[in-house]
């Protein structure tokens, strides 16, 4: 997009200018890393690590410097720290995975303006594709879930995972087109409802396709799903030994997979960011924005509505298809529960929170929501429950921790937090944390002048034909 960049820097950014800025960011990152080595389980340290990544993004430095810093953090420092606490790799994997989903959804909702509440369906398609072909499920298609003992061999060798990454992309894109067709004529609320239904249909199908042919193994889900083979070089005892010495603890195959999935997710995320940026700044990206702005004008300018919308659905879906395959391999287990409506909503929250239409924004949104989901709230819950075990009392109130009802467990209030977060955002910063250039201008600048009253008349409601 070519909207003039706002050159004013925030106070924080001014601090991070020039050579001193480079050192400050380096110091924060090094401090966070050192803190992590000292206490690998500390939540504040993890937050500081994420914060240092944010600083790298925001520091007003040359592109290659930021790339060097960011790449160094993501590819060297974080994996190194992951040796001390494997949860860091899991966290990184989840953030990157959901960020990729958020970028895919952002193409549909943020770029093309098509509200999709069933986005998780495409994730499910990718995941179930590899779940079915990457497990022994193929041998058990004529047996009811729970009645069979798992056959010993896998129909496809584990390296087929790589092929299925592509299959997942194509399969999800195809599903995207499938969803796209019936909703081409719909706008706004209607579109949202139908896509929501579509997401549920896919989940319910996963739940029920254990008969007549057992494809999904029903609510029990499919397991084990193969992980791609790791080159034997890494699994050799010497390498594991060396890594173990670095980490100060024995390092095994599962740790290696932790690294592997982290790197894979980051790679796919980077690819997704790259493609989304390029598409946004192309003929197709402009066509998406145009139909979001005014589909009648867009089509009158020669933008084929059907193809442009289908492209948004297909491309948006394809990102989550690839991630679905990776996710299935990472968990070695899929079940319909993973693909509930709340996940679609979560991804939408990431997009809106971060900034509709803004790539950097949705990545940050994904980081925040994922951190809240799997780290912050869980950690608080754990701490609360350990307090409840003890005999201390709540400061000021004087009530013993132990008498605190379990209903007050923070992890139970996930949705409440998201709700509050969204409300606060909508009041104070409706364009998101890192808004897209366009939306920032859109929400904070008044039009130069109102059109004359005479121009309001003659609104066009196009024939249905327009959309078919």
């Amino acid at each position: 997009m070519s909207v003039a960049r706002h050159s004013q820097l925030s106070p924080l950014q001014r601090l991070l200018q020039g050579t001193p800025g480079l050192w400050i960011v380096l110091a924060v990152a090094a401090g966070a890393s050192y803190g992590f080595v000292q206490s690998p389980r500390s939540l504040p340290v993890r937050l500081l690590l994420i914060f240092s990544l944010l600083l790298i993004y925001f520091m007003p430095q040359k592109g290659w410097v930021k790339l060097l810093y960011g790449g160094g953090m993501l590819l060297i420092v974080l994996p190194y720290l992951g040796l001390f606490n494997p949860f860091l790799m899991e966290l990184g994997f989840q953030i990157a995975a959901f960020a990729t989903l958020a970028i895919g959804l952002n193409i549909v909702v943020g770029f093309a303006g098509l509200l999709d509440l069933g986005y998780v369906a495409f994730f499910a398609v990718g995941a179930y594709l590899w779940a079915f072909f990457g497990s022994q499920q193929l041998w058990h298609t004529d047996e009811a879930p729970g009645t069979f003992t798992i056959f010993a061999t896998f129909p496809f060798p584990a390296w087929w995972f790589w092929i299925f990454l592509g299959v997942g992309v194509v399969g999800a894109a195809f599903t995207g087109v499938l969803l796209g067709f019936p909703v081409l004529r719909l706008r706004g609320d209607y579109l949202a409802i139908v896509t929501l239904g579509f997401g549920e249909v896919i989940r319910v199908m996963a739940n029920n396709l254990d008969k007549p042919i057992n494809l999904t193994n029903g609510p029990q889900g499919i397991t084990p799903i193969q992980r791609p083979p790791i080159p034997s070089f890494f699994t050799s005892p010497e390498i594991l030994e060396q890594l173990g010495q670095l980490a100060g603890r024995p390092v095994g195959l599962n740790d290696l997979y932790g690294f592997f999935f982290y790197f894979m997710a980051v790679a796919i995320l980077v690819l997704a960011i790259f493609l989304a940026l390029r598409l946004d700044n192309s003929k197709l990206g402009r066509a998406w924005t145009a139909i979001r702005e005014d589909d009648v004008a867009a089509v009158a300018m020669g933008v084929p509505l059907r193809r442009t919308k289908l492209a948004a659905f297909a491309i948006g879906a394809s990102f989550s298809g690839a991630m679905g395959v990776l996710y299935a391999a990472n968990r070695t287990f899929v079940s319909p529960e993973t693909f509930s409506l709340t996940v679609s909503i979560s991804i939408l929250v990431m997009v809106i929170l971060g900034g509709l239409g803004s790539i950097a924004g949705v990545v940050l949104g994904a980081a925040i929501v994922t951190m809240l989901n799997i780290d912050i709230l869980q950690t608080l819950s754990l701490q609360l429950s350990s307090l409840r075990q003890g005999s201390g009392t709540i400061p000021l109130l004087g009530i013993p921790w132990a008498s605190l009802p379990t209903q007050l467990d923070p992890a139970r209030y996930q949705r409440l937090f998201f709700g509050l977060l969204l409300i606060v955002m909508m009041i104070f910063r409706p364009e998101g944390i890192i808004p897209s250039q366009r939306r920032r201008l859109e929400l904070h600048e008044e039009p130069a002048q109102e059109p004359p009253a005479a121009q309001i008349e003659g609104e066009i409601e196009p024939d249905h034909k327009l959309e078919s």
Partner: protein
Amino acid sequence: MRPLLELRNVTKCFGGLVAVNNVDLQIEPGRIASVIGPNGAGKTTIFNTITGIYRPDAGTIRFDGQNIAGKRPDQITAAGMCRTFQNIRLFHNMTVLENVLVGAHTQTPSTLWGAMLRTRSFQLAEERARQEAIRLLRYVGLPAGLGDQLAKNLPYGQQRRIEIARALAANPKLILLDEPTAGMNPQETEAAIRLFRRLRDELGVTVVLIEHDMKVVMGISEYVTVIDYGQKIAEGTTAEVRKNQRVIEAYLGRSATSAQGPVGEGS
């Protein structure tokens, strides 16, 4: 000469309302033609039917040798016809330049793969489209350097010009302008008239405009079609139409209620 655009017995209804009733219309290539008529006569509906936004309930529409009735708007645009809207429909939150680039959609030969891989041909096509858009903005008389502004932040008269540039970007043989001078002051209107002439004289684009401002209509049209209650009630040169009894009645008949000036009064 074979007409560039030819409507035959075109009818368009909204429920019980016959907004366009059995209209015949012929536009010769290279003309500047006007469609006039009182408020609510059905002029905009005719444009919407020609450009494919509405599908005609009856009749045929031939454009440049092919039947376009029932085709999609984007196909019709690709066939060489583009338009502006009565109530400006720019993409408000896109920049001026992007607006024109969307207009060039059918003229930009870039593919999905090209965009993803940033191929040489993609970059070339983008650069060419950009240059062309800048040229068009200058051509319609927009001050330089406004390309990066959001369209909605520009004054009204300039928005009308951008809409014309956006339509021109589709490289049309025929351009349909729906009340292009509405809301303009006299100087702006003068400049707009000059621009419409240049479109025809320099670019060879056939121009059809809907106008309420009789000074504009009488000043530049070579052919005028008068619509009332969805029907064509007269057509011909400005002089012929001005004298036509039905036209005078149509305008005077309404003037008691809508204070519309009679044809030929020039204000």
